[in-house]
């Protein structure tokens, strides 16, 4: 039994080594689980939307519920202007949710517990939102960095502060998801290790903690996917409806 709680985050190669220039693009366990979760989403939603019966079966109900859930979330936070971006936010939410949930199955790999994965997702959102803002408002988008009603003397300082707070978005977005997933999984592994080392006499207390933590982790897995999607909506809202 591996005593080190961090071994579960190890990325290893599956199959042959593939190199493009100096980049190592071999197929790893991380890529495997990304593909598994994407395939699971595709299968569930294809089956769910295949038969459009008036009285839905379980899969159709699930697909419809998640559709209305995300649609309501976008409508509440970003308004009707954000409708064209529904497909993107829906797939983002589903991908993060499925990656988190697949990580909850024992002996699997949690893709979102690696900062590079979440950071790439977050920086794509950041770059995309910035481009959308510039397309919609032209250079007027830069007004985002100049709040109204600020004295001219303070303006240089305020602009620097606003730029820093704008640049901190992808970092706070990615660190939140990554830290939550990694901390939770490490904690579960640590308590699991306690069960083994304390044996049949003292192992019951950490075991009960483990059960409680599993429940908490499932909650966190859902919640973090939700927070990730809702913050994307908020950033999108800032880009679409410029008001300061």
């Amino acid at each position, binding site marked *: 039994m591996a005593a080190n709680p961090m071994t579960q985050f190890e990325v290893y190669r599956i199959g042959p080594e593939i190199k493009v220039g100096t980049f190592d693009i071999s197929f790893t366990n991380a890529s495997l689980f990304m593909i598994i979760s994407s395939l699971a989403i595709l299968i569930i939603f294809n089956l769910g939307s295949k038969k459009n019966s008036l009285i839905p079966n379980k899969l159709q109900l699930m697909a419809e519920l998640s559709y209305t859930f995300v649609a309501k979330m976008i409508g509440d936070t970003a308004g009707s202007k954000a409708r064209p971006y529904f497909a993107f936010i829906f797939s983002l939410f589903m991908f993060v949710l499925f990656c988190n949930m697949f990580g909850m199955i024992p002996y699997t790999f949690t893709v979102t517990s690696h900062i590079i994965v979440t950071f790439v997702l977050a920086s794509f959102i950041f770059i995309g939102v910035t481009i959308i803002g510039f397309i919609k408002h032209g250079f007027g988008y830069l007004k985002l960095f100049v709040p109204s009603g600020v004295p001219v003397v303070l303006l240089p300082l305020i602009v620097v502060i606003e730029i*820093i707070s704008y640049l901190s978005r992808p970092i*706070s977005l990615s*660190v*939140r998801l990554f830290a*939550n997933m990694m901390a939770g999984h490490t904690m579960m592994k640590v308590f699991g290790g306690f069960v083994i080392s304390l044996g049949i006499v003292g192992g019951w207390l950490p075991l009960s903690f483990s059960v409680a933590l599993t429940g908490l982790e499932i909650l966190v897995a859902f*919640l973090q996917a939700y927070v990730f999607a809702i*913050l994307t909506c908020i950033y999108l809202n800032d880009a679409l409806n410029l008001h300061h």
Partner: protein
Amino acid sequence: MSKDQFKTRLQIAKDKILKKELSNKNQNSSSIGAAFKLSTELVAAVAVGTIIGFILDKTFGTKPWLIIIFFFVGVVAGIINVVKSAKNMQK
């Protein structure tokens, strides 16, 4: 069942749903998310400020000064971020 009876029963059911929705709003599941949102917001801005200071220091060769200044600017930006998102939550 008469029409009036049905109306009162409908009203009672509607009130129950409303009550449930109100109590769901204050559940702590979403407050965990809120707490994490606030804390990472603060840390991320400080990190970005410090990184910008570090890069500017390297390019201009003003070794310790810009990183110190931008660290504090980052702290201010982080606090402003936290206040902003806390205001957003109250809406």
